């Protein structure tokens, strides 16, 4: 018969385990603050780094901003001056060389048409194309007498000559006989006719 006598007081009893609660608490008391301190230090370092980046960028912006404003002013000046150059040079592109047109009219009046020109009136004006671009346009009114029995055919021939004249082609958009009536000129024969042909010119833009 074995007899087991427990002589250790309950307060003197110790756990047989290697990891005791007490040692865990001791470790935690040291490790947890270290981790927290490390985390705070890293956070502060990151913050300092981001703040430095921001400060650096702020410095760059302080340096670039006045230069950017100067670049903006220069760009505005460039746009205004280029626009002005186009407007002034537009005078050359928008005009039509009327001496060529008048020469073209002269050449189109063939002697066999028996046409006597009485009046030529060209008028050009300025207007806006698409409400945006100023342009010049105009028209030429040719009035004259067609003499003899073939007056009507001759006026048609003249109209056709205007349409096919090398000087006028490309500039003239429409050639229309506006008037064709008996001549009231003194000494006119019963076959003589007064006529008016209107030539419309394509608009030429100031650009």
């Amino acid at each position, binding site marked *: 018969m074995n007899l087991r006598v427990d002589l250790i007081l309950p307060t003197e009893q110790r756990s047989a385990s290697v990891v005791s609660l007490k040692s865990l608490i001791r470790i935690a008391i040291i490790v947890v603050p270290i981790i927290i301190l490390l*985390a705070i230090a890293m956070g502060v370092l990151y913050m300092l780094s*981001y703040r430095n980046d921001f400060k650096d960028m702020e410095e760059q912006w302080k340096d670039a901003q006045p230069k*950017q404003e100067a*670049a903006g002013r220069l760009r505005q000046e460039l746009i205004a*001056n280029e626009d002005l150059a186009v407007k*002034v040079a537009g*005078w050359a592109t928008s005009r039509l060389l009327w*001496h060529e047109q008048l020469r073209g009219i002269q050449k189109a009046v063939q002697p066999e048409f028996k046409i006597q020109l009485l*009046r030529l009136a060209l008028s050009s004006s300025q207007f806006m194309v698409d409400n945006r671009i100023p342009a010049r346009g105009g028209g030429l009114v040719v009035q004259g007498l067609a003499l003899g029995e073939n007056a009507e055919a001759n006026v048609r021939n003249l109209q056709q000559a205007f349409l096919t004249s090398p000087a006028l082609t490309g500039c003239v958009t429409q050639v229309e006989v506006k008037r064709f009536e008996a001549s009231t000129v003194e000494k006119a024969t019963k076959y003589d006719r007064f006529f008016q042909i209107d030539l419309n010119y394509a608009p030429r833009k100031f650009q």
Partner: protein
Amino acid sequence: MKLPEGKKERTQVFVAIGLGAAAVLYCVYLGVGWIVSKKKDLQAKTGELRDKVNKANMEIDMMSKDRKGNVEALRKIVSLSNQYMLKPRLGQNYILAAKDQIEGWADKADLMTTEAALQIQERGIGDIAQAPGVKTVPPVKTYTAYVSFSAGYNHAIRFIKAIEASNPLLAIQNVTVQSRPPPQVESHAVGVDIQWPIWSDPDTPSRLEAQLAAGEGTEK
């Protein structure tokens, strides 16, 4: 340090430790949250500034090209202005300057004769067509002079050709060639409106020249 022996006291100590640890963790959580939000805020601000700096740098890089373009545009305007735009004489008088030019062309076309009876009249200053709603004063206006004379058709064409060849900016606005009854059938009544571009502000040429000088100085 020893833990109390009583179970109740031990529990109280553990609860106190637990509460302390929870408080510390909560503080850490708040601190981390603050750092994260601050970081996001700083990153956003830095990113915004970086974009602005990049855009500014791109615009600054364009400056030398813009400067060159500006000087080119100014050279073109100043050249056209000096060569071809009508400049007023004293007291904003344009007709004297126009008259000198017209008489030169008339001379070339043999129209400075008594028979030609050349006459020059001032039509005045007008505006170029402008887009509706535009309220700014256009920089360029028109000045028109009317010339009348008696001549044959070929003389009239020579006169108009002389005008058009002398100045690419000049525009013939209106022309009438009216035949006359016998015996003057060879001499027509001719009327021509000649239009020049002029500066709306007479100080524009000097301002442009100053701008050009400044631009050329910077270019060097």
